[in-house]
């Protein structure tokens, strides 16, 4: 007997649907929203409206790519939160109506738990227990993963997410949104010769808002002396900012590994595409004898495969919700 899960994700600006059968990803379709580029960030109302025209096509294509029909779906898993409420409403309402119409059980999924379980989309997969650093435009946290559905957040950001630090720096430097890929590319041609202070945050928590402020003051000061400072030093500024963001992340990861004694170390979320972070993880891994894991890019950014996968593990344990479920903007794991 197969178990086939339709996963639906609409927490931010990507509309996604995926089919997972018996824990294996058969399709993973994402409709992005280029429209936000011109605004320098995700505009919630624009995102919500785009989800409304993307939701049926992504589900239809996900089924088609999986070679399955509507009748083959056994359960519907959907992102209940955290995320933008208008965006979530579209995916959640569609998922509920689809499940109701076909008499299927519903599975609510926490978006952050799903990012961690994206590691089980394909081999190599970490073994339990492992530590996962989830870094994206909206989230930065270290998660202790004891089992598929047994996770504990060991530390998280007290202000901005790491991805936000990239985006806000990009705004200061006049780079397009999202700025992460631009900074990554420019940094490869520069040297990290400018020193931005590392925030002193206790335990395993993070802070990135101070970094943004110190970059702003640094640029203001330098530009008073040389109005062309940014253009003349763009690559070096990018390399310096990126090096600091990565060092903040890695220092806490090393601390978490030391405290827990765990040597299975994973990264998830959109920022895990960053080449400096990948390199730093590899270096630390060699130094400390870690096994390290980074999913392929399509499973790092927001995607429904991770939602359907999480749905699969919840299905095995009979963790369903009723039709009265509604989305939530904030939802801790």
């Amino acid at each position, binding site marked *: 007997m197969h178990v086939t899960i339709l996963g639906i994700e609409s927490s931010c600006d990507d509309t996604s649907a995926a089919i997972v059968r018996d824990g294996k990803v058969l399709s993973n379709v994402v409709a992005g929203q280029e429209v936000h580029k011109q605004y320098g960030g995700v505009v919630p109302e*624009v995102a919500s409206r785009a989800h409304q025209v993307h939701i*049926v096509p992504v589900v239809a294509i996900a089924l088609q790519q999986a070679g399955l029909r509507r009748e083959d779906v056994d359960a519907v898993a959907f992102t209940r939160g955290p995320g933008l409420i*208008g965006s979530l409403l579209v995916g*959640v309402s569609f998922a509920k*109506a*689809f499940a109701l*119409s076909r008499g299927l059980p519903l599975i609510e999924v926490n978006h952050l738990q799903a990012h961690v379980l994206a590691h089980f989309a394909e081999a190599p997969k970490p073994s339990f227990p492992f530590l996962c650093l989830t870094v994206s435009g909206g989230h930065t946290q270290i998660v202790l993963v004891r089992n598929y559905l047994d996770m504990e957040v060991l530390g998280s950001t007290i202000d901005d997410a790491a991805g936000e630090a990239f985006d806000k720096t990009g705004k200061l430097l006049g780079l397009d949104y999202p700025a992460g890929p631009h900074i990554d590319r420019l940094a490869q041609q520069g040297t990290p010769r400018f020193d931005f202070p590392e925030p002193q945050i206790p335990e395993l928590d993070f802070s990135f808002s101070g970094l943004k402020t110190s970059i702003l003051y640094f640029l203001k000061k330098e*530009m008073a002396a040389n109005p062309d400072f940014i253009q003349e030093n763009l690559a070096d500024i990018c390399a310096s900012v990126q090096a600091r963001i990565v060092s903040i992340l890695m220092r806490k990861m090393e601390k978490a590994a030391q405290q827990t004694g765990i040597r299975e170390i994973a990264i998830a979320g959109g920022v895990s595409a960053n080449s400096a972070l990948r390199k730093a993880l590899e270096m630390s891994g060699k130094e400390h004898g870690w096994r390290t894991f980074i999913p392929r890019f399509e499973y790092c950014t927001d995607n429904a495969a991770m939602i359907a996968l999480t749905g699969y593990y919840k299905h095995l344990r009979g963790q369903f919700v009723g*039709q009265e479920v*509604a989305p939530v903007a904030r939802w801790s794991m």
Partner: protein
Amino acid sequence: MALLLLIETATDICSIGISDGTQLLALRESDAFHEHAARITGMIVACAEEAGVPLSALDAVAVSTGPGSYTGLRIGVSTAKGICYALQKPLIAVDTLQVLALATAHLEKRPALYCPMIDARRMEVYAAIFDADNRLIQPAAALRVEENTFADYFAKEQAIVFSGSGAEKCKAVLHSPLAHFSPVLCSAAHLMPLANAAFAAKTFADVAYFEPFYLKPPNITTPKKGLW
């Protein structure tokens, strides 16, 4: 006879009905604030049970397009799409204001103009004007209603019947003796005549790409040009 599911979520009232082409078989309404998303499918189940028809027996799903609450419309339209896509049923889109004008005309039976109004926060309403035969006279717009907003009509001795969730707050500023106020509010029950007509004419909306009638573009504050 077309068996239709009727969805009206353009206002603070979440309203669901099932009709068989001539009469309403079931109706469920809830004005619980911010509860549309949680309640809508449960109300659909309750209607289907009362009407004694499974969702698979529906001929189509009719949804109120707006203008209205963005949140309400998102929930109503996404739910309608979910059912239509899952069961391969056609989608019927009916204009919220036209529906409201028609329902008000049916009740009031006056040889007047009809101005359905949907509350749009602050002093704004989404409104349009229809004649007594439900023909559009003035297209939908977001209006900040003042004493003179309808002065041209009143000057021509044309009476206007105002109804809907936005009418009540305009009472205080519309003093003309030609202004009448009707208590009719948005309800799935009112969707019936226009939804039946659309079904008979096979006027269906595209299940994949249909969008609610938002009326206004998203409110976007453009970033300051250049930080330096």
